[in-house]
């Protein structure tokens, strides 16, 4: 039974979708609560997964491997290890939260919830798939609902944002598809199995070809992360997307890019990863510093948070690049960098999710996101103010919050690898603190703008959405052991995996 738990988690939302389809559209409340209640099941199962997962190096568990298209060697191969378990939990958690938050969606409720459930299946599939074909299918399945979510429920420039998001990601995934085909044919074993292909090392010694495949995969994943200069779709998509869409986009979809690096690029193309690590590190540095400075210049609250994602995902990439470049002598540094990167993935998902929700809260009341118009909300909305303070502190890396632990690990691991780059990226840390504090000042502090004197404080729906995320930030900030227990197995396993280099 255990073995099928991942399948159940992944496809349960799809089953739920089928059920929702049969609810008539004029009963929106039934649709809403059915979806929310249903989405609790995958959430509970993924929490169970977290507790049940026993860790250890190469700790692949709950694996199922069945032939799907035997003629070309495609299998339905799913499994979970230290990398995917937290991501599965993050996905189910953020989906449930988004569904709860989206109770305020009034238009085309049925379509909204259906697309969201489809999106959940796509995302979960990406994190459980251990077959390239399956991975690619789920990767694209997660793209389409998000396109509709942005395009239908988005802001005024939603069509532009949706198309841009779709085409950017598609260009990346097509590059990825070509790379997958190259690996498939280079392996020659007629298998799309991610682990089997990594084990076969199809390009060992062929640096030119390996480099080509590496950059193709890099393009696919870097657009998703996004790494500078492929980030331009992100602010548009975020600004136009409905709040719940932004939460999922920043919280989970961006992580799929990093996940791709950790799951595919590093184990399969270790030599190219090592050779080009410095370029990745430089791009990560630019993302960190550029993201921070551009965020500082934003007057749109949501755009600011969007650019802060570019900045924070830069740390993940820095950690990955550092882990690639370190030699066999620095095994523990390598594992540290990877642990940091993976924790940052989780922590950023939680923090940025909370921030986008909070932006949504104030936008719904004030119908503006212009930071220049706010001020003094702290006196008007007390609960809001507390939650925003905490989320911003977590985001800027205050000790005691999960962001700090993650960034500390990344820097600790990256230090031996790239002294200069790591030092320079500290600038990003400072600027991040500056713009977040400035934001708090502009929104919460100062004299109350009379225009906003009558704003209501957060209601139960919004509080229920945000509080669990805040709790996780604090939990893993103070006591990160439960998550490191899970991450560390994969980190050390991956670190020792490509020692050969």
């Amino acid at each position: 039974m255990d073995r099928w738990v991942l399948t159940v988690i992944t496809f349960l939302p799809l089953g739920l979708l089928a059920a929702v389809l049969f609810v008539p559209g004029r009963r929106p409340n039934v649709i809403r609560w059915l979806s929310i209640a249903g989405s609790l099941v995958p959430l509970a199962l993924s929490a169970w997964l977290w507790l049940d997962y026993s860790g250890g190096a190469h700790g692949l568990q709950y694996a199922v491997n069945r032939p799907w298209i035997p003629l070309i060697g495609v299998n339905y191969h799913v499994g979970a290890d230290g990398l995917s378990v937290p991501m599965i939990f993050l996905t189910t958690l953020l989906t449930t939260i988004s569904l709860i938050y989206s109770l305020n969606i009034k238009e085309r409720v049925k379509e909204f919830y259906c697309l969201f459930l489809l999106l959940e299946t796509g995302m979960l599939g990406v994190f459980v798939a251990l077959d390239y074909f399956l991975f690619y299918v789920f990767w694209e399945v997660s793209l389409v609902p998000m396109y509709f979510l942005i395009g239908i429920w988005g802001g005024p420039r939603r069509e532009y944002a949706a198309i841009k998001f779709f085409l950017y990601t598609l260009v990346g995934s097509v590059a990825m598809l070509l790379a997958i085909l190259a690996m498939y044919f280079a392996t020659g074993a007629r298998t799309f199995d991610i682990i089997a292909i990594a084990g076969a090392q199809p390009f060992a010694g062929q640096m030119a070809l390996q480099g080509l495949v590496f950059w193709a995969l890099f393009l696919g994943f870097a657009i998703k992360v996004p790494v500078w200069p492929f980030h331009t779709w992100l602010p548009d998509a975020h600004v136009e997307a409905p709040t719940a869409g932004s939460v999922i986009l920043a919280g989970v979809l961006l992580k799929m890019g990093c996940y791709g690096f950790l799951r595919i690029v590093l184990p399969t193309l270790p030599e190219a990863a090592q050779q080009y690590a410095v370029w990745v590190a430089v791009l990560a540095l630019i993302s960190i510093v550029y993201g921070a400075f551009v965020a500082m210049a934003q007057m749109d609250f949501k755009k600011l948070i969007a650019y802060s994602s570019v900045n924070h995902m830069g740390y993940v990439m820095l950690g990955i690049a550092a882990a690639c470049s370190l030699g066999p002598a620095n095994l523990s540094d390598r594992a540290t960098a990877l642990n940091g990167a993976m924790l940052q993935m989780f922590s950023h998902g939680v923090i940025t999710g909370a921030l986008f929700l909070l932006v949504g809260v104030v936008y719904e009341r004030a119908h503006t996101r212009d930071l220049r118009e706010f001020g003094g909300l702290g006196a008007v909305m007390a609960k809001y103010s507390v939650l925003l303070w905490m989320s911003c502190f977590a985001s800027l890396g205050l000790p005691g919050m999960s962001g700090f632990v993650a960034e500390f690990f990344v820097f600790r691991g990256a230090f031996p690898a790239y002294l200069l780059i790591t030092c320079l990226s500290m600038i990003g840390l400072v600027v991040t603190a500056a713009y977040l504090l400035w934001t708090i000042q502009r929104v919460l502090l100062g004299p109350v703008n009379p225009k906003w004197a009558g704003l209501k404080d957060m209601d139960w729906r919004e509080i229920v959405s945000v509080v669990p995320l805040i709790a996780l930030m604090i939990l893993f900030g103070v006591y990160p052991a439960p998550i490191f227990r899970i991450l560390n197995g994969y980190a050390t396993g991956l670190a020792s995996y490509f020692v050969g280099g």
Partner: protein
Amino acid sequence: MTAPSLQIITWNLWVSAPVCALAASAMVTLIAGAFWPAFARWLTPCLALGGIALTAAFTILAGMLGLPPAGMQVMDSFTVVFDLIILIAAFITVLVSNHYVTRENLERGEYYALMMLSASGAMLMAASDNYVMMFLGLELLSIPLYVLAGFSRGRSESQESALKYLLLGAFASAFFVFGAALVFSATGSTNIVVAGDATERALVGTTPIYVIGLAMILTALAFKVALVPFHMWTPDVYQGAPTSVTAFMAVVAKAAGFGALARVAAAGPEGSWTVLLWGLSAATMIWGNLLAISQNNIKRLLAYSSIAHAGYLLMGILAGGRAGISAVLFYLLAYAAMTFGAFAAVIILAGRGDGAEDIEDYRGIARRSPLLGWTMAIFMFSLAGLPPFAGFFGKLYLFSAAVEAGYPGLTVLAVLTSVMGVFYYLRVTVVMWMQEPEAESGPAAQTSAPLLSRLVLSALAVAVLALGIFSSPVLRWTNSGSAGLERSAEAAIQMTLPEPTNAPAALSGGSR
């Protein structure tokens, strides 16, 4: 094995049973429509569906008999698979046509009869291993289609479409015949495989003439399947013809052309032939996708998209072998499902007199009719090649066959052009889903349709999804088809090889 008998046809009636069954059913339908015009509305489509089902039964039966080549036609597993694809397509056409034909007052008996005759020509084309038979099939396919294209006699566009299709179709046939004549004069045989084999073994000293002849045959088939630069007629004819006929043309005529190409390509000489196919495929993918981007009329858009898809299909022909041909067959099936789906939706949307055919007319239609919105989105995403729909799986099989056969460059090009394609398919979904309906946006698109149309639409959407996710058994089936093609090519050569003295005078006569 018995001595070869190219002495014109030792008829094995079973070999031609499916084609004859379909043609006979067409005649019955025609007569029924002529004698009981009052019942034409429901009688003729029912007869057509029955005839198609009967033919399918005959095809499966004939396939199980394992018949040897009959000299003109072969009943190998390729024929069986291909015929069934054509029959499925014809079956869907009847279902899709019903609403259109009723609405546009075209319910005359000959409509379905002509369609069935055309389908029997398509079957004949793929089943023939002789240029004579292939020509017969080509004409049997085309002539009814000329009439069908002009079937809406009240509309100038329809008549014009018929004239254009006729002139270019006849022009292409002339190329085919002259090409066959050249092949015959170079090799002394009109058997596809034997002629190719004779050239390969240099039995005759006139290879250049053979290559020119083959190139002319290729040109004719390229007209039929709309490969660039022989595609000019496609958008006009597709736009002008009655929509249900357009769907039939886009699927069945194209499939027939590729069936014939699969047979001919097996006999193509190395070198110049592959370069030719490579260039045609590349030009078709690029040009088709490029021109589709600027189209506003949905039928023209689908026409250019069908051109682009011909380019992808040609990749499979170029790759050849078991994987390549199997991928072509699979893709034809997937392409049939999604193209019929798109046209079925257009038939409903366009309304009486085909008023609303501009994409802009479909603003916000998904809000008025979720069914049309969802299904059209599925067809568009599938045509664009996104998983988990059939279009993606089909493309993947084609691409991997091409890589395996040693054409990675063309594959990269195909992948890039399919990204280009996503842009215009996406536009349809943007208009339907994301834009608000405008008050004065020209002729209003319709959303109401009879139950049958809605059922067909949903069934096609499900088929597009199922063909993707459960593609494994289908792929195994198409694989058996491509294996059959290989086997019968070998058999045809075997028949001419063993004792040169026994070989037909056709071959030796030419060289001496």
